[in-house]
Structure formats: C-alpha cells, structure tokens
C-alpha cells in the first residue's frame, strides 16, 4: 500500500537557481600549443572551437596539433629528459610537483568553473570531486619522487623516458593529473593530449605548470583530435603510452605499438555490475545506484551501468529507484542544485540515443521520469531499462550515458555469473549487510575495483584499473608508479 502511495506522490520541489559565477575565470580567446615551456602556434595554422555543451556557446578556440607539432614536443621532452629532468634530484623533483598541487589548489574554483563550462558536468561535482582529487593526486605523487626505492623491494628504479599521454573528456583535469603526476614523480617527461571536446583545463594546467617554474619541455600539452593522438602513439622516440578512453581505441593502440618496445597502460571501457542483495539497506543502496550510474551523466568508465537486484526485493528497489530519480534535478551544470548536467557532446548524445533505440527495439521496458530538459544544449533524461536479457546489446555494450539496465537474480552464484559475463572487468558494487557475503562476492567478481556498500569513490592513494578488456595497468597509489618505471 505504502509503496503505491510513494509512486503517486509526484515530487515537485522547486529550487531557486543558485548559479556559480564565471566572472572570476580567465579564458583566452585562442590557445596555442604548450611546447618546451612556450606557447607556440600550430604548424598547420589550424584552430578549432571548444563549446559549452549546456548551451552550445563557444568558449574559446584551441590549436590543432599535427605530426610536426608532436615531433617538436617529443624532441623538447627528450631534450629536457636528458639534459635537465633526469639530472634534477628526486627531492627537487618532488618539490616541483608539490608546487603544482598548491598552485592548483589556489586556483581551484577557476578550474572547477572552466571544467563545468567545457565538459557540461555539474559544478557540484567539478568543485567537490574533480578538482580537489586532481590537486590531491599531484600532492600524493609529489612525495613519491624521492622514495621510489621503497615502492619496489630489491630493485633499482629508473624512469622510462618520454611518456605520451592521451586523456578522455569525462574527467578532463582529473585524468591529466592521473597521468602527469606519477610520470613526473618517477622522473619521466610528458607529452599530453587532452580530448578534443574538453581541452581547456589541461591548457590551464599548462599555465600552472609554467607558473610552478618547471623546466621547459618537462611537460608539453598539445590539443588536437584523434590524428594528434595517433601521432603521439606512432612517434619513434616515445617510450610509453598511457591512454584512457574507449576499448576500441585501446585495441588500436596495442596493435600500433606491437612492433616496438613502448610500454603501455590502457584504462578503457566498462560495464560494471552493481549488485543489490536482499539484506542490503535499500535506501542507501538506491542512493548508491543513483550515484553509480548518474554521477557525471553516466560518463564514467566504471559507472554501475548494470544493476542486479535480488528477486525478493526487486519490485521494491525499482519502485524506490523510480521515485528517487523523479527528484533528480537536470539542467544547467553551473547551477549548484543540478544533479545531472549536460551530455558532453552532440556525438555522445547521438550514441546514447542510438542505444536507447536499440534497447526499445530489443523489447526492453523503458522508464524515464517526467522532467523537462533545457531547450538548448545536449541533455538526456535518466533512463532505466527493465526486462533486459543478458545478451541484450544495452547490457553487453558500454553506453557511457545515464542509462541503467536492470536484471534480477535469485542466488549469489547467479549474480556472480551474470556480473562476470562480460568482456569488461573494471568495477563492481556490492550492497549487503553481511560481511562474509561481501568478501565472497568481492573475491569472485572479476573487477579491478570493488565498492562494497558504496560506489564511485576515488582517491589518489587507491589504485584504479581493470581486468580483461577494461585495459591494463593501474593508476593511483603505489601501484600506479609501476606504469612509469623500469626495474633493474
């Protein structure tokens, strides 16, 4: 009875807008490439626009680097590796990285606002998650620079040389921090390319790195498209490729470097299971489901995009979930009330829409709350799919949007089997009150990160990365160092 009442009561809380100001940010009209400590024009002379996906307005334009620019950047990185960075004592290296962390912290609000404008993610998340984590990542790895021998028992640790790094558009600044901080701490120099739809915070980071007084060429930041990334991957004098992005591109990269000695770490896609057992605290679990799939509009490689609910509580959980998502605020990412912001790009919105159509064509039952989307910009309603099969494409393939599939199970064994039945292995969520059950599931789920009674938590000290087709290597923590060192 009570449950039906929940369903009927349409939630109509009104919030007055609480807009974050963008008056204090500095954005140039045009950004060049940051190579060898200088801002240089792209050799092609080409620039492209970067827009705010929430209103399609142009924010700035950035340079499109080609293979000549990449070559210039790699040469600068090599020169500074040989001449300067490898001769800088570890303790001094450490202090440079601490400086970066501090300067970022001082400008944290500016970074958060620019991230929200450029990526469409809500200001609450960029302010409270992305930017603080990015700062802390530098702060954490800074301290490793002069302690590397403690991380690898019985071995001498050496840097690899020049690291080529390619970052995605879902956590632009945070991913740049994940890549650059351990690379520098281990003594490498860097050529980094941010994603084409979200280049601005990486360029702001170049400013911070410049202000921190890092020797020229230690970090080079090049904006561009896939061809720019390919030029980095294919460059002969790059020793290591670190890539975060789609599994498809990850496979192309592994193939492209197969004839070389380049080391690689690939942080790729996922289709992570979020498993709700009947003894779970259901209201907390519902919050966890929402955080799992709607955090950052579902643009999260470890998003809990496959929900598994034990049959005995499935009806109740789905009802609570529907009720909960009817109160999510979808709209302007700059509004501090907003829960779900803009989809990152038109291209991504098209992909999500394509999968929603596939889900409907496969016969799944769709639920979307009755909400009004902003008229301009790219937005998508939070979407649930019930009545899906393990073989459904929307269950098997990564959608990278606010779309959740819901399956049920009777036994723990069945949940484990279904959860593991995917080519991916990035993350998994477990919700239960029983400790021994957590450890049973945690040990049997094939995933690099297990969140028990929580979801989508990140920390610089906590290694992140997947099994199987979710890629290889770990980022974060002591384990993240091994991606950037040679052991002798």
């Amino acid at each position, binding site marked *: 009875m009570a449950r039906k009442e929940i369903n009927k009561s349409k939630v109509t809380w009104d919030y007055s807008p609480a807009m974050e100001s963008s008056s204090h940010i500095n954005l140039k009209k045009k950004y060049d490439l940051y190579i060898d400590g200088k801002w240089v024009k792209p050799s092609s002379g080409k620039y492209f626009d970067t827009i705010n996906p929430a209103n399609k307005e142009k924010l700035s334009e950035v340079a499109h680097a080609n293979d000549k620019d990449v070559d210039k950047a790699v040469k600068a990185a090599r020169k500074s590796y040989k001449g300067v960075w490898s001769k800088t004592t570890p303790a001094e290296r450490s202090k440079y990285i601490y400086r970066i962390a501090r300067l970022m912290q001082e400008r944290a609000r500016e970074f958060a606002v620019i991230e929200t404008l450029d990526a469409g993610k809500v200001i609450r998340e960029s302010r409270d998650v992305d930017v603080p984590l990015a700062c802390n990542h530098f702060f954490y790895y800074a301290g490793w620079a002069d302690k590397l021998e403690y991380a690898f028992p019985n071995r001498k640790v050496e840097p690899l040389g020049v690291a080529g790094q390619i970052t995605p558009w879902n956590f632009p600044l945070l991913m740049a921090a994940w890549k650059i901080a351990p690379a520098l701490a281990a003594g490498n120099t860097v050529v980094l390319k941010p994603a084409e739809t979200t280049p601005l915070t990486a360029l702001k980071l170049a400013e911070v790195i410049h202000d921190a007084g890092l020797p020229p060429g230690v970090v080079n930041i090049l904006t561009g498209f896939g061809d720019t990334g390919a030029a980095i991957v294919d460059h002969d004098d790059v020793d290591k490729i670190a890539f975060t992005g789609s599994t498809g591109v990850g496979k*192309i990269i*592994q193939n492209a470097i*197969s004839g070389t000695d380049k080391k690689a770490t690939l942080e790729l896609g996922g289709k992570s299971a979020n498993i709700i057992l009947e003894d779970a605290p259901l209201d907390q679990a519902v919050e966890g489901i929402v955080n799992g799939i709607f955090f950052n509009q579902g643009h999260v490689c470890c998003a809990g995009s496959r929900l598994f609910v034990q049959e005995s509580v499935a009806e109740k959980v789905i009802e609570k979930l529907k009720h909960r998502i009817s109160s999510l605020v979808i709209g302007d990412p700059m509004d501090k009330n907003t829960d779900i912001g803009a989809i990152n790009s038109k291209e991504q919105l098209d992909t999500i829409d394509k999968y929603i159509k596939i889900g409907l064509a496969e016969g799944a039952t769709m639920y979307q709350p009755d909400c009004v989307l902003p008229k301009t910009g790219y937005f998508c309603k939070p979407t649930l799919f019930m009545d899906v099969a393990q073989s459904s494409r929307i269950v098997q393939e990564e959608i990278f949007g606010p779309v959740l599939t819901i399956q049920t199970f009777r036994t723990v064994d069945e949940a484990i089997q279904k959860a593991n039945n995917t080519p991916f292995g990035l993350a998994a969520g477990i919700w239960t009150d029983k400790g021994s059950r*957590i450890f049973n599931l945690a040990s049997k789920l094939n995933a690099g990160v297990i*969140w*028990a009674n929580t979801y989508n938590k990140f920390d610089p000290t*906590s290694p992140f990365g997947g099994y*199987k087709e979710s890629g290889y290597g770990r980022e974060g*923590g002591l*384990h993240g160092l091994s991606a950037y060192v040679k052991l002798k």
Partner: protein
Amino acid sequence: MERLEVLKTYKIYIGGKFPRTESGRFYNPLNSKGEQLGNICLSSRKDVRNSVVAARKAFGGWSERAANNRGQILYRIAEMLEGRKTQFIEELMFQGSTKKAAENEVNVSIDRLIYYAGWSDKYMQVLGSINPVASSHFNFSMHVPMGVIGVVADQTTSLIGLVSNIAPVIAGGNTCVVLSAENLPLCAITFAEVLNSSDVPGGVVNILTGSPAEMIKPLTTHMDVNGMVYSGNDRSTIKKLKESSALNLKRIMTYDEDWIKADAQNLYMLSDCQEVKTTWHPIENIGGATSSY
C-alpha cells in the same frame, strides 16, 4: 639373452591426462649426434583449444586454494623432480648436454621450484597495500591471479626454461597452457609426469610439444586466454604476440633471460601475472567518541 628395453611413448599433457595429439601428427627432432629423440607429438590448434578449456576449468579451484597449499604443492613438485633426477639428467645428456651441465640444470630447476614455492604465501603481504584514502572508507589492494596464461617456454633449454616460466605463473594461482621447446621436448614430457604425481590438479599446467610457430596464433588469438608469457628475444614473434593479443587485450610478458643463472628468478615475474584488485568499504563515522577517550 639381454633384456629388450621398453621404449617410452611421448605424450602431451592436457587436463591431467596424457593423450597423444588429437591430430595424430608427430615429428622427429634430432640430437647433436643426429639421433632421433623419438616420435614426438606435433600438437595442433585443436590441442591448444582443448588445453585452454582444461586450464579455464581448473582455474577456479586452483586460484581459490589456500596460498599455503599452493606452496606445499610447488614444494612437492620439487621433491618429485629430485626423486627423478637421474632420468632428467639422462634426457638432457641425450639431447646434447654434458653430464655436468645436465646435473646443474636439474639442480637449479629443483631450487627454482623451491624458491617460488616459498613466494606462494608471501607475495600478497609484500605487494598488497592498505590505502589511506581521505574519506571514511577502509580500502585495500591485493594481488589476484590473472586467469589462464599462455606460456611460450624458452626454446633453448629443455628443463630449466620450462620450470622458470611455469613456476611463477602457478605459484600466483594462475593456470597455464605451455608450448615447450620444439627441438628439446623430452624434459617437458617427463616434467608433465612429475606434475601429475605432485598433487597439482589436472588442468593447472597443460604442456604441448610441437611447433610454437604453429601454435602461438591459436593461443594468442584465443578469447579465453588472459595473458601470455614469452621467453626469448625473437622480435617478429613478440610483434605477432602483441598484435594478436590486441583482440581481447591480453597482457604480454616477455623475458629474455639466461634461466640457468641463479638469479633468473624474482617476485616481479610472479606479480607480472597478477591483477590488482582494490576494495572499498565505508567506515561508520557517527557519534562524538574518538580514540582519545
């Protein structure tokens, strides 16, 4: 009258059983004196696939064995090898080793097994971590086995390379499909017999004789193989391994080592075939009491 010697039929090792290759094919490698080593199984891609199935089936049980038990089993392999020392020395000499070199190779192989037996219940402590996250969570990382590993064993030795390549893989809870030295196959076959009498569950190690050039492709393109260990330095083979591994993003581990050296063993060869799993759980953080009470 002198007794007629019973000749040995050389077999492969799949799922704890000793079949001949399903293909019925064989080859006759020669030793340095030009003598035939025997009718050795020229294993086929179907044998490779059967082995992967056996390895996958064995993975659950082996990976869930207590670390201590895995250590005991590796130690047991060493014991069995010690007991059959003479046979291995004879085989090595028949394949071209001097007596001294053969004795040394068997001794180092036994010691290598003991070395990794010891790591079985220690690497977790050395490599694992509790991570001091800023939020109110308990967070720890541990190493867990990668799964089914394809092993292209050292082609220049008959026993020590094979043992050095297998031991760290199984000490860490993986199962494997091993392509042995094509032209020095005798010890691989006898080593399978040692494994079979050492409480190693069937399917944990599967050993195929024949041509790696022929079998590498079905192994590296197999979607149920998680990683590949390659011992050697042939660049075109390494390239092929990496290329076909891109299909399902297998991890590729290559080692170019002189396995007979006492220090051609370390923790990192074991950790190379591990995945890092990190688990989070909230810590209740309500009420005012702190540890200063």
